């Protein structure tokens, strides 16, 4: 039986962050990587771009084909871990048993599939894996119009991909606006406008009540009683952490696997990162599940460094999102949706819409659309909790390093490390 110094379950961005971190300090310790998916590590956010035909097979890869070899990783792809014995430091796959000294769980989340009549018809998809996208892509020739359930990021990016693939799309969102976790009402309208420009309908405050068809999807009925013809329904109402492996084990869970600031679970030597983890959000000062890619990498990296004997804490937390819809940039960060007792600064001009949320003279969140250059400087104000002082008036014009207080500016101009992990 092989014993790995480091075992990693899940072939995700968090896993790569951990591997690259481990190898930056430990060149010899053995690493075993177990993934139920058969693919070389790929970029999950690219699956919609793949669907749209924008990204080729080889460009799906998140790291080069020789990555595992170069990083000394023994990768077990398509090998689902069936169980883990946390006390004995063992894990079982169909192929056998392996032992480990340190373990990282980064299995991500799985789509929430609502119970809808007709949900088992051909043409009903979820959008979470490369295989999902492949299946969808091969089904496209039969599709003229599609209905996407869920106006979140996955739903909208899928809708965009389908539009670009030539499909007529209707998006159905139960909430009163799309991207309600990320955007306020007005910025959501900006996004909706982008879709409407493409002839895409976005219906809010409603949901799919029934999917109809013989073998395949032929139409869908909405809760408002209307029915529309479609050949495809995509269910994208969210993901939930994959907790199967830790169910009924000493590993503490809440909504996700609960980790401390070192990304370590309640079981010493066992770490978790990525969409499966419930990690610390410095901005809210509490743990939460926050499925965004930069945080997954950073969390994996902190976990990896700590697995390799380092002492790092994870302080990133805050929600960050940047994307485009039909080429139109939309970024948001921090508590953009939380508006209680906050001061709001808004602007809307030819450069786009922007909204800044200020509490106690500190920026707690913002949304920018259109012109997003140098948004990172603004995000840093949020993350570093820099007092705004006179800076408020400059926010709408676009903040430069030159606008920052002298001390911070000097530190930035001379400094060289931008990661917010504490050393």
């Amino acid at each position: 039986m092989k014993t790995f110094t480091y075992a990693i379950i899940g072939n995700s961005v968090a896993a790569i962050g951990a591997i690259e971190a481990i190898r930056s300090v430990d060149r010899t310790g053995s690493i075993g990587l177990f993934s139920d998916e058969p693919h070389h590590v790929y970029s999950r956010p690219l699956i919609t771009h793949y669907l749209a035909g924008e990204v080729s097979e080889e460009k799906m890869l998140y790291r080069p084909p020789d990555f595992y070899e170069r990083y000394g990783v023994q990768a077990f792809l398509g090998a689902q871990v069936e169980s883990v014995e946390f006390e004995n430091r063992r894990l079982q796959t169909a192929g056998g048993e392996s032992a480990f000294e340190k373990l990282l769980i980064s299995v991500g989340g799985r789509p929430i599939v609502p119970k809808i009549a007709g949900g088992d018809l051909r043409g009903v998809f979820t959008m979470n894996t490369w295989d999902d996208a492949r299946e969808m892509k091969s089904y496209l020739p039969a599709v003229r119009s599609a209905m996407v359930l869920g106006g979140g990021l996955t739903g909208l990016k899928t809708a965009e991909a389908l539009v670009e693939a030539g499909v007529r799309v209707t998006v159905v969102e139960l909430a009163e606006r799309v991207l309600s976790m990320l955007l306020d009402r007005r910025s959501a309208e900006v996004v909706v406008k982008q879709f409407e420009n493409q002839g895409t309908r976005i219906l809010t405050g409603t949901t799919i009540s029934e999917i109809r068809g013989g073998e395949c999807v032929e139409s869908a009925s909405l809760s408002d009683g209307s029915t529309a013809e479609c050949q495809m329904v995509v269910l994208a109402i969210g993901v939930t952490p994959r907790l199967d492996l830790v169910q009924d084990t000493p590993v503490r869970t809440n909504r996700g696997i609960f980790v401390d600031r070192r990304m370590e679970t309640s079981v010493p030597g066992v770490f978790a990162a990525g969409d499966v983890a419930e990690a610390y959000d410095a901005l809210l000062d509490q743990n939460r599940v926050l499925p965004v890619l930069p945080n997954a990498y950073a969390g994996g990296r902190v976990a990896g460094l700590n697995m390799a004997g380092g002492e790092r804490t994870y302080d990133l937390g805050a929600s960050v999102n940047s994307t485009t819809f039909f080429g139109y940039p939309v970024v948001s960060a921090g508590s953009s949706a939380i508006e209680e007792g906050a001061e709001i600064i808004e602007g809307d001009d030819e450069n786009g819409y922007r909204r800044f949320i200020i509490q106690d003279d500190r920026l707690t969140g913002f949304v920018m659309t259109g012109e997003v250059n140098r948004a990172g400087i603004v995000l840093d104000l949020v993350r570093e909790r820099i007092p705004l002082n006179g800076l408020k008036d400059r926010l709408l014009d676009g903040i430069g390093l030159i606008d920052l207080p002298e001390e911070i500016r000097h530190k930035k101009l001379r400094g060289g490390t931008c990661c917010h992990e504490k050393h």
Partner: protein
Amino acid sequence: MACRLCEVGCKVEHSEHKHVIKSFKREKPVARLLVEESGPLSFATQCRHCDEPACMFGCITGAITKDPETGIVNLNAEKCIGCWTCILMCPYGSITRTNGARPTAAKCDMCPGREVPACVEACPNRALVLMEDEEPAVALEDAA
């Protein structure tokens, strides 16, 4: 001193023609560094080639990598799909977008093949200095 010749140098270096007049007149290239000005204060900012590059952490495609040998943070424009997460992640505001049909992120690449980056060479006041090792790869002074 806010002449912005560093930007001119950078644009030319990262243009197709690499000829100052032709590049400007034909291409409208984008500079990978930016001179910030406020009254008499001015300086150039560009990628610090961070030890722990947030842009790379955030890059959804794997287009941004850090060369373990040189420490240079590279951006593979071929892989970039233009999601601008790196722009949101960079606390220095040092990543920009190219013009053209398929805009991609663009950043300082330390001018591969050159002994001294074009911006440093173009600076008439030695406000831009190439520095090695522990220090940030390109350090900037308020004198810029």
